[in-house]
């Protein structure tokens, strides 16, 4: 019997090793993943010669943020396919080399180095999560390769240097959008704020919201806080309830917001909740149940937008991948199209020329809003406000800077 325990341990070790293989893709795994996704030859794989312009993408295809990277990749592929069908750039076809960062900043940095030194890409499309994009930006800036992040909203990403751009708005803007919406559209006078003290994103949004809301003549009755991973918010909500607010601003991520909504209803708070793009996930509806209905959040884009360009993108995306594209797919698509347009304008394909061309992007018609890059290389664009109801979101309004 004494032998049993070591044997069991050995069996466990074998099992663990087997699991490892399944979840951790080997370096060759990316190619396999692409093949499995039915990647078209025109927009994937290694370049075939001098008649190809190679772009690079680093995104989370596995790990906790996997949906982010996959959506973005689909958007980029779609944009490249369209550009190639229209004749490519400077008489050459476009291709993209995709590396998985496994949702980890260190992997993202490594993949970026590989894109620059081995694959010699002309331009890099970054990740969604700001921490990954920050790690990439450092490498891209040092090598003088232009990088565009589709959807990293943290202010510091583009501050890494003059080769780093983004096609989405920055976090403080969302705080302003919700403050304006709460004052002008919902006509709220007194609100409470419930922020995530462990997230720079949440604190940023909450600070700007508070400042702007006060400037617009409203009052912020109280600011309570929680920590990412908490599941009991009754104490904060009870304290908020005492101030009898007309609304609550909760600029957090969907995993916490869903539970907060349920408990807010439980302690008897019936007022609307408001938040930012951290809410944008199917999980929000599961975790929040019916309690989240009637809440509002700011986002990059809405699939309900009747604009013909947006609806064509949605139809194309559905045809290619099935399902409605989320904001990340839309921003991936926009980032790739901004890049392609800049490559067309650039006088050659060297880093500095491409950089200058991207910097001159003005009034570019993206599906997630018009892109104009400011002198800090951030997109100045409008945000949409969505209303949550019965397991889906509904477009309410667009707010411009």
């Amino acid at each position, binding site marked *: 019997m004494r032998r049993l325990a070591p044997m069991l341990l050995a069996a466990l070790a074998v099992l663990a090793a087997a699991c490892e293989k399944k979840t951790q893709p080997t370096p060759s795994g990316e190619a396999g993943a692409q093949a499995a996704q039915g990647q078209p030859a025109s927009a994937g794989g290694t370049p075939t010669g001098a008649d190809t312009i190679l772009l690079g993408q680093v995104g989370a295809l596995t790990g906790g943020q996997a949906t982010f990277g996959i959506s973005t990749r689909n958007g980029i592929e779609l944009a490249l396919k369209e550009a190639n069908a229209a004749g490519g750039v400077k008489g050459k076809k476009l291709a993209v080399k995709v590396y998985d960062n496994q949702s980890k900043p260190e992997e993202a940095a490594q993949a970026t180095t590989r894109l620059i030194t081995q694959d010699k890409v002309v331009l890099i499309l970054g990740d969604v999560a700001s921490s990954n994009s920050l790690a990439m930006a450092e490498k891209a800036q040092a090598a003088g390769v232009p990088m565009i992040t589709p959807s990293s909203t943290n202010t510091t990403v583009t501050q890494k240097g003059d080769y780093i751009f983004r096609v989405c708005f920055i976090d403080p803007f969302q705080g302003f959008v919700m403050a304006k919406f709460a004052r002008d559209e919902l006509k709220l006078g007194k609100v409470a704020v419930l922020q995530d003290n462990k997230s720079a994103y949440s604190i940023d949004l909450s600070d700007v919201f508070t400042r702007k809301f006060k400037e617009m003549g409203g009052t912020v009755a109280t600011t309570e806080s929680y920590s990412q991973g908490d599941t009991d918010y009754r104490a904060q909500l009870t*304290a908020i309830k005492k101030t009898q607010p007309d609304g609550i601003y909760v600029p957090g991520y969907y995993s916490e917001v869903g539970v907060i909504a349920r408990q807010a209803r439980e302690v008897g708070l019936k007022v609307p909740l408001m938040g930012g793009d951290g809410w944008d996930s199917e999980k929000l509806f599961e975790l929040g149940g019916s309690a989240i209905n009637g809440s509002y959040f700011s986002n990059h884009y809405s699939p309900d937008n009747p604009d013909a360009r947006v609806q064509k993108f949605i139809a194309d995306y559905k045809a290619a991948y099935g399902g409605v594209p989320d904001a990340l797919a839309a921003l991936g698509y926009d980032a790739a199209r901004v890049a392609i347009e800049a490559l067309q304008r650039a006088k050659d394909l060297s880093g500095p020329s491409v950089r200058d061309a991207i910097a001159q992007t003005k009034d570019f018609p993206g599906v997630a809003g018009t892109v104009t890059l400011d002198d800090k290389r951030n997109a100045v664009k409008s945000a949409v406000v969505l209303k949550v109801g019965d397991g889906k979101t509904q477009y309410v309004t667009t707010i411009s800077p």
Partner: protein
Amino acid sequence: MAQLLQHLINGLAAGTIYALVALGYTMVYGVLKLINFAHGDVMMVGVYMGYASAFALGREARGSLLGIAAVFAVAMLGCALLGFIIERFAYRPLREKPRLTALITAIGISFALSYGFQLDIGFLPGASPRAFPEIIEPTEWLIIGDRDVVVWNWQIISFLIAVGLMVGLQYLVFGTRFGQAMRAVSWDHRVAALMGIPTDRVIALTFMLSSGLAAGAGLLYAIKDTSVSPLMGLYVGLKAFVAAVIGGIGHVPGAVVGALVLGLVEEFVVGYAASSWRDAVAFGFLILVLLVKPGGLFGRVAAEKV
């Protein structure tokens, strides 16, 4: 005043669940002098067993007394089995080894469970948090004033289940032959063995009991906060461990009192100060108790036999 009352209710609700988890730590420590750091993660596994069985039962699990009982039974029996396996293969081979070895193994099992459950293969649930199904249909049971204080049916039911489990445990330890054997093993397991007590069986049963109890507590926790994730065990487990130490580890009523105190302290700190103070105050309180009364509020300082 109404706010104070609501905080009191919230704090008690959190405290009773900490108490049930803390009892598991205290029982195992009492019998083996082992701090079973995997206890919180066993609780987490129990929650996912309850999750799976609630879905398997579908609407039967909702509202019907039989359905709720079935969910609890599956989770508690499943966890008891898990407790047995862990004790048999991870702790028993190390029983005659220095105590530190078993402690390290316990931490290893804790991580294996909490990170293993974040994988997304086969029956494993993956890293994303999930909403626990409402196996008790929530209804407002008591409303004071203009919804100043709201008490829900599941709060009462959870409280009753928790008290029931605690009373049952107290009877088991002090009113049955098995309890007598447990206490004898706790006193000195070698002498107990000489007296004809099947120590291995008693220790295994203690583990099963504490793990089953953890599953029960986990389900009450999941009903309360609705969001479940593979890392929940680390968090609740740590808090319950602190509660057990505050009360005097190895002391059954001490664990309950310690947990209730901790639940209330946390609730009042968050409600009247700020949430960032919650853990600071909880652990500060622990340090204070250990400084003033090293054995905990109810414990006695026993000289270590050399």
